[in-house]
């Protein structure tokens, strides 16, 4: 299945000419002959849920934004792919930029937005060049501009190059950053769909979410619903890394099991080693034990197995992995990326790092496990955004699933 990774079947599709030859921009042409509300309705019926991590129903987001009378409206593409273990948006940005542009143009028409931004992470300079060239080509061919395809719709698209702040992947922090401010999240409500960029209705969707839109418009919601699992329809990009034989980005139906991904598509564990643990959706999703790999990878199944789908960034650990060290490294990441606005996150995550650091050298204090639990409870649910929550749940995941390995960091126990 290559709906999102079109370039695998049509290597020329990175360029405008090849993209059009492989059927590109037909969905935009079709969409511009439809009523905007009918497109929103079709996307709502398709059951598409946001591919950035939270899984919010895309059609609902669009419905709320279109109902808001304030103008102008904006759409923003979240291309700030910074979640460690996640590299699924890169092949869309670097190999299928027109799929993103077409998806954004259709989305803009659906909610009647005239301006769009692609908020691209500063660590992707190659993608910036490719996407900017693709935008230029799309303008020349009339797929962007003041009168798209001569059908009277105006949409202008810009690339906004970020500068290395993970927190800007959080949608309200992203808006702050776009407005020329520090990337610190806003309190919600109001939600961006009502008061987003410049206090106007703003739809923010992930790269992969926008990339699904042309296909939904082309084949219709009923056909789209047949892909994936009933509660989480559609194709999903899984980026697999760590101790597997064939790491990479795989486009598979939502609901494919972890076992099939790891042992089927990725060729099993490197060097014939045993599987020890899996992080299923980027480092802010709780780690799972090897016996849970029959879990279908979708929004509803993973919570039943104690984790979350997140971004679909799967990190695989073999029997040799030092999970206490991994836990410390993840907390150092969150500590570095906390924007500093909310005290429980700023202070709490730093404290988690301090405790884990002494444990990682085998000199943890008696009571440190309980201390980690206590600190993480005091972060959970007490901050503006989900960064601190992620850190807290991840520590709890390590403590729940690999407790004895964590306890080995307490001095005098070995």
């Amino acid at each position, binding site marked *: 299945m290559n709906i999102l990774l079109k370039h695998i079947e049509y290597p020329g599709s990175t360029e405008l000419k090849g993209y059009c030859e492989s059927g590109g921009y037909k969905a935009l042409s079709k969409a511009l002959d439809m009523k905007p509300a009918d497109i929103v309705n079709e996307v709502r019926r398709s059951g598409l849920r946001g591919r950035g991590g939270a899984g919010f129903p895309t059609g609902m987001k669009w419905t709320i934004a279109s109902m808001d009378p304030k103008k102008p409206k904006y759409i923003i593409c979240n291309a700030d792919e910074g979640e460690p273990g996640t590299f699924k948006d890169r092949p869309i940005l670097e190999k299928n930029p027109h799929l993103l542009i077409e998806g954004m143009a259709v989305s803009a028409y659906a909610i009647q937005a005239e301006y769009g931004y692609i908020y691209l992470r500063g*660590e992707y300079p190659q993608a910036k060049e490719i996407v900017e060239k693709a935008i230029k080509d799309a303008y020349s061919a009339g797929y962007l501009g003041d009168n798209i395809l001569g059908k009277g719709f105006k949409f202008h698209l810009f690339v906004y190059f970020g500068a290395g702040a993970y927190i800007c992947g959080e949608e309200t922090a992203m808006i702050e950053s776009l407005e020329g401010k520090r990337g610190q999240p806003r309190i919600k409500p109001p939600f961006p769909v009502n008061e987003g960029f410049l206090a106007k209705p703003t739809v923010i969707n992930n790269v992969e979410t926008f990339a699904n839109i042309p296909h939904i418009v082309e084949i219709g919601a009923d056909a789209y619903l047949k892909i994936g699992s009933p509660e989480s329809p559609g194709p999903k990009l899984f980026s697999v890394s760590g101790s597997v034989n064939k790491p990479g980005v795989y486009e598979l139906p939502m609901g494919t099991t972890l076992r099939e991904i790891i042992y089927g598509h990725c060729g099993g564990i490197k060097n014939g080693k045993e599987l020890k643990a899996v992080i299923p959706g980027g480092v802010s999703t709780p780690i799972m034990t090897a016996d849970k790999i029959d879990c279908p990878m979708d929004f509803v199944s993973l919570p039943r197995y104690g984790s979350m789908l997140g971004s679909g960034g799967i990190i695989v650990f073999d029997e040799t992995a030092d999970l206490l060290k991994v836990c410390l490294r993840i907390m150092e990441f969150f500590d570095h990326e906390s924007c500093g606005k909310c005290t429980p996150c700023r202070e709490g995550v730093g404290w988690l790092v301090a405790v884990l650091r002494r444990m990682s050298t085998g000199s943890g204090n008696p009571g440190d496990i309980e201390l980690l639990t206590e600190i993480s409870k005091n972060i959970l649910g007490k901050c503006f955004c989900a960064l601190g929550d992620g850190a807290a749940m991840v520590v709890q995941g390590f403590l729940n699933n690999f407790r004895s390995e964590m306890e080995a960091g307490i001095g005098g126990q070995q």
Partner: protein
Amino acid sequence: MKGPLENGTLKSVPECGEKETALMPALYTAQKEHGWMSIEAMEAVAGALDIPKARVKGFATFYDMFGKKPVGRHVVRLCTNVSCILSGSEELLLRLRDKFGIAPDETTPDGRFSLVAMECIGACGTAPAMLVDNDFYEDLTTENIFSILEKYK
């Protein structure tokens, strides 16, 4: 984008949609011209955009890609997050230290390389990975990393 920073003054504001979005690209322009984000560079941007200096400084110091001190001719950004560690990026850091005598956030005495230990750069499937200036390098080993760096003088 228009208006390079000439003689400490940003001549014109970059074109990037709404005017609020001008600060980030203006800082990138200033950094490109100036090499790093000095107080002078930030103040030039504040003057060019006619916004308070404190706001520019608060903004620029929030984002990691704006250098807080002078950097070498080439910036080596080696990923040190989970997937890269699993594939040996810590060993690469040690080798870089042995060969060039620099730890993360340091610059070689000849001004050739600055080293930065990065959070995830989105190349986990081809780990370990690094960016040298704007060029991506993946599937690094203790051998090929030095032949790659040889190209940067």
